[in-house]
C-alpha cells in the first residue's frame, strides 16, 4: 500500500505517496517529473536510468524508492547544484551554471540521440568525484567494468565520451586551482 516517503532530490525535499518497492526511476519521472533519468532496459543492464545516491551511482530502474529515503538523490537535472555547492555559488547562480561534465558534453558535442547520455554524465560525475584525473584506461574501466553493467550507447558515442571526461577533468582541476 502507498505510504508517504520523504525524498531529498537535487537539494529539495519531496513527500511522495508511493509503495516502498516502487522503482525510484518511476517516482522521479512520474511523480517528480524529472525526466532526465530514462527507462532503457529496466533490468540495470544499460545505464540510461543512472542517478547518484549520496554520490554513488545506482540504477534507478531496479532501486526501490524506499532505499533512497534518507539519502541524497542527484539526477542529471541536479548536477549543476552539485558543482555550485562545491564552488560555493548562490542558488541563483547555480540555476545558471552547468556542471563541468555537462559543459564538456556540449563542447565535445557528445550526444547524438542522447537517450543514454543522462546516465553517461552521472557515471562521469561519479568517476571524477573519486578520481579527478583518470587515464583513458580508467575511464573505459569505469564505464564498462563497474557493476552492474556497462553503460551502453547504441549511437556509438564512446570515443567522444572519453574525450569529454578528460575535458571535464581539466576544467574541474583548473577551476579548483583558481579557487585555492
Amino acid at each position, binding site marked *: 500500500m502507498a505510504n508517504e516517503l520523504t525524498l531529498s532530490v537535487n537539494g529539495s525535499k519531496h513527500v511522495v505517496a508511493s509503495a516502498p518497492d516502487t522503482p525510484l526511476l518511476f517516482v522521479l519521472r512520474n511523480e517528480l517529473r524529472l525526466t532526465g533519468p530514462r527507462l532503457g532496459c529496466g533490468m540495470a543492464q544499460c545505464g540510461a536510468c543512472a542517478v547518484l545516491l549520496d554520490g554513488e551511482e545506482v540504477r534507478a530502474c531496479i532501486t526501490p524508492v524506499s532505499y533512497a529515503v534518507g539519502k541524497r538523490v542527484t*539526477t542529471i537535472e541536479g548536477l549543476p547544484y552539485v558543482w555550485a555547492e562545491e564552488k560555493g555559488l548562490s542558488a541563483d547562480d547555480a540555476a545558471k551554471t*552547468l556542471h563541468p561534465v555537462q559543459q564538456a558534453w*556540449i563542447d565535445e558535442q557528445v*550526444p*547524438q*540521440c*542522447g537517450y543514454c547520455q543522462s546516465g553517461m554524465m552521472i557515471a562521469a560525475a561519479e568517476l571524477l568525484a573519486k578520481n579527478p584525473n583518470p587515464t583513458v584506461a580508467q575511464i573505459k574501466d569505469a564505464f564498462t567494468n563497474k557493476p552492474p553493467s556497462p553503460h551502453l550507447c547504441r549511437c556509438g558515442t564512446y570515443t567522444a565520451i572519453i574525450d569529454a571526461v578528460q575535458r571535464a577533468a581539466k576544467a574541474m582541476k583548473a577551476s579548483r586551482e583558481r579557487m585555492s
Partner: protein
Amino acid sequence: MSAKTTESNDSPITSTLTRRGFVKIGGALFVSLAFPAGFSVKAAESQTSLDPTLPASWLEVRSDNTILVRTGRTETGTGMSGYYAQAIAEELNVRPEAISLLMGDTDKTPDGGYSAGFLTGMSNVRKVAAYTYQTLLGLAATQLGVPVSGLTVTEGIVSGGGKSISYGQLVQGQHLDLKIPVTGQPAKADPVAWVGITSLDGFTVTGDPPLKPVSQYKVIGTSYPVPSIPDKVTGKTQWSCDVTLLGMLHARMV
C-alpha cells in the same frame, strides 16, 4: 502583387508572392506549400496531426530579423538541427544562429515524411531557402531601386547602389505569402499499408531556384554546434515517452 521569383527561363515552375495585407506591428514573409492542381485536400478536413495543409508555413522571415523554419522531421541524433540551419543559412546569406527550427510537431509543421535522409530533407529545405532568397532579392530591388544583379547580401543585409536594408526591414509592416511548388501526397493512416501509413515520403519541393555555388559557401563546411545538444545534457529534451497530455493518466505507444 504577384511576381515570378525565378529569373531564369529554364524552370517552368515558379513560386508566387502575394501581399495579403499590411500590418501595424511586426510583419513577416511566410513561405508555404503550393499544392499541384487536382491535389486532394481531403486530408485538410480530417484535422489530424498528419494533415499537411494546416501549417501556415515552412519558413518565416520576420521583421525582427529572426527566421523560423518548420519541418516535420525530427532531430534523432544525426545532427539535422545543425545542418538544416546551416543549409538554410547558406542559401539565405545569414548566420545559422539567426535560424530557429521547429521540428517534428506535425500539428505545427508541414508533413516531412519519415525522419531519415540527409539528402532528400536537405534538398527540400535548401530549395525552400533558395526560393525565399530570390523573393527577398526582388523585394530589395524594389525598395532600393537597384536591379537584382546589382545587389549583394551579407548576413541578412541587402546592399546595392550605396544603400542597404535588412530582411526584417523588407517585411516590416507587411504580411507576405510565398507559395512554393511541391509534389507528393500527404501521409495518412491506412491500416492495409506498411506500418499503417501511406505516403511516408512527405513533400518534395519542385522547380529549380538558383542555388548558391559551392565555391561561395561560407557556412557549410565550417563547424556549427548542434543546437539540440544543450537541452540533451540538462535533461530538458522531451522524448515521446516524456510527453504528457492534459488529464493523461497512462499512455502506451502502439
